[in-house]
């Protein structure tokens, strides 16, 4: 494709990306450098059904004036990035000097909101992605071998978890694993422990979320693998059959090498998606024990008070940096393969 044609072909989507992805990122970045203007407080008399008393209230006039002078808020530089709810430099430094052992330091570190969320996000990413790739591949192989008449309904059944809205899917499972739900009571029966509850401990909640993540993401890997399986050349397979290769050997030496680039693509997309995990945390009411970076952003914008745009912006920037770091090894690898193929 000549460069000129490519340019005009790419232009509309490039423009859309710039407008709807690029500009918002820049605006979030600017917002993350600012915090709310100072709140001016005043004492006023307040009367309600329980009586009158003098109470503190925000002086709306004065605060509005400040807000009009600085619509973005006070400039705080990278201060928000370094505060306790983000990278927490001061707290880490303090923990480093005061901790007597590495274990104590790790404890303090993982108690800080950002690192706690990062730990869950990374655990979720790396626990979900490999099983998704393996399971997706196995399911695709199996579906590929069944008779044509059964294929349609089977494929529909397999991709169902992806079709179900994440929030609904997680809610349905949430009710099923309730101590009195069908899965919850079965597990209690299985382990003969009437007090066992998947929702009560952090570890079990994490495992539940991870299993949900695998369940929800596998269809995506399946769809891509299944499409790629249709492109596997038949000649080498027939040759291998004639040579007496077993089914396993054919998959191992012909199919897998052929699907390798596809697997890289799936890993890339899965890592990226799972790094932004949010819906299952809400659906499983797991905010208490499992917080992700996306959940932190959500919480800054949907808490019981003023929206913390600065804080949310800072977390967004850190998430973007996180995704970039996560994808670098895969991208470098793809780039190298691309070059050697040439």
């Amino acid at each position: 494709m000549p460069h000129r044609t490519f340019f005009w072909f790419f232009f509309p989507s490039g423009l859309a990306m710039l407008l709807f992805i690029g500009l918002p990122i820049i605006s979030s970045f600017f917002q993350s450098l600012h915090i709310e203007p100072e709140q001016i407080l005043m004492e006023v008399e307040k009367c309600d059904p329980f009586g009158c008393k003098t109470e503190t209230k925000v002086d709306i006039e004065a605060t509005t004036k400040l807000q009009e002078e600085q619509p973005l808020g006070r400039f705080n530089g990278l201060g928000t990035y370094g505060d306790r709810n983000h990278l927490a430099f001061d707290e880490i430094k303090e923990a480093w000097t005061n901790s007597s052992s590495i274990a104590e330091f790790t404890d303090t570190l993982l108690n800080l909101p950002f690192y706690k969320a990062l730990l869950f996000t990374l655990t979720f990413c790396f626990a979900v992605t490999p099983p998704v790739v393996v399971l997706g591949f196995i399911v695709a192989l199996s579906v590929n071998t069944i008779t044509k008449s059964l294929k349609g309904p089977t494929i529909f059944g397999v991709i169902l978890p992806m079709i179900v809205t994440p929030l609904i899917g997680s809610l349905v499972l949430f009710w099923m694993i309730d101590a009195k739900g069908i899965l919850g009571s079965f597990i209690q029966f299985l382990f003969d422990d009437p007090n066992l509850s998947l929702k009560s401990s952090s570890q079990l909640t994490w495992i539940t979320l991870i299993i949900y993540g695998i369940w929800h993401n596998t269809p995506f890997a399946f769809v891509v693998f299944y499409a790629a399986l249709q492109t596997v050349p038949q000649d080498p397979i027939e040759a291998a059959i004639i040579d007496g290769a077993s089914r396993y050997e054919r998959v191992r030496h012909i199919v897998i090498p052929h699907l390798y680039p596809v697997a890289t693509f799936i890993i890339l997309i899965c890592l990226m998606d799972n790094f932004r995990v949010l819906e299952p945390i809400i659906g499983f009411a797991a905010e208490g024990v499992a917080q992700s970076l996306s959940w932190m952003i959500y919480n800054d914008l949907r808490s019981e008070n003023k929206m913390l745009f600065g804080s949310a912006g800072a977390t967004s920037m850190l998430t973007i940096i996180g995704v970039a770091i996560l994808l670098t090894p895969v991208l470098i690898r793809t780039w190298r393969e691309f070059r050697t193929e040439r």
Partner: protein
Amino acid sequence: MKKLLIALLFTFVSTSAYAGGHSPCGVTDGSIKILANEFTTYRIFMDEVKSCAGPDADFSVTHSVDHNKLQVAALSANPAEFSAKLVTNGSITTLMNDNLIRPLDDLVAKYGSALQDNQKIVIDGKIYAVAFMANAQHLWYRESILNDLGIAVPSTYEEVIAAAEKIKASGKMANPYAGAFKSGWNLGQEFVNMYLGHGGDFFKAGTAEVSVNNAKGVAALNMLKRLTEVSNPDFLTQDTNAVKEEWESGNVALMHIWNSGAASLLDDEGDQAIKADTRLAPSPSVGGGSKPATTLWWDGFGIATNTSDENAEASFRALLGAATSTEMANANPNATIWLIDGYSPGDTAGPVVDAANRGATPYPSLPYMSLLHGALSTELVEFLQGNESAEKALADVEAAYVAKATEQGFL
């Protein structure tokens, strides 16, 4: 304060509604869009609002338990997503901080002749909201179960735990106690109750500087921990509505939830045997204190600043019609404690009046209280799961509060 509430509850002087002034009902112009919490009493109230608005009105209401999380974003937009919001002494401060609800003096002068004075929420000389009900959390118990085991109705949390342990030991119930411990707003509220019950203060007087990491805070947390040990192991996922379901399924013999819960717990749906066995009791005190460990609340409505005057007037009229409807109040006397003129309290009002008499304080209406409540919502979970000490959890609460309050400009 006590006198007012008592006077209010036992005033049977009934004046005819809407004597003088313009009649609020039968709205034809403007649209009414209301955001409200989700529980049975609000449904009853909203039915009345709708019928007051009349068949020609453009009326819609959104009930959501996440109303507090939606309100700031929804009312900040201009024009606002909703023309009115049902508020409480807790949620009004967040809206006041950002000037998101408007003064109602003109509208009250025009339509509000049937309002009682204590329904008017006056801040700095202006009416910002109209209250229609009072609420508080208190103890509920199953009479037959307590009688069978010879347990007296607990009046302190220490007795609640002893009673729960006795029920547990008898094998009648595995998890006899329930409270709304869902991580988030509910959990924060449980701490607020317990900390006030221990006589704690959330802030250094007159400042936004937090102080909860003290002996009273630790005692409050330890009491919560002991309560969760006699609760359903899923306690961190149960909000008030989930607790009510547990109650109606007969899994619980003692609980501490809202007085307005009577609207659904004592209605004609569900297991009537459990309903007949359900009793209300005063909120227990704790740690040798005399104050009950609960807070007093009023519920009312505010009108959005960022909506047209036409919509504001329409919404105000419909809501006011319900907030002065003696008929609705007396048709549902047990749904809550209505603040409406001419209302004769039902037999469920006792525990709230008792709480007011024993010195329970209203939920703190401070501009930065919601930030502290937010910090409590997330930072106490690890302690309740046994992964952290009480001191550490409270230190985390303070640190999380300081970071947020700094960003918002309070510190």
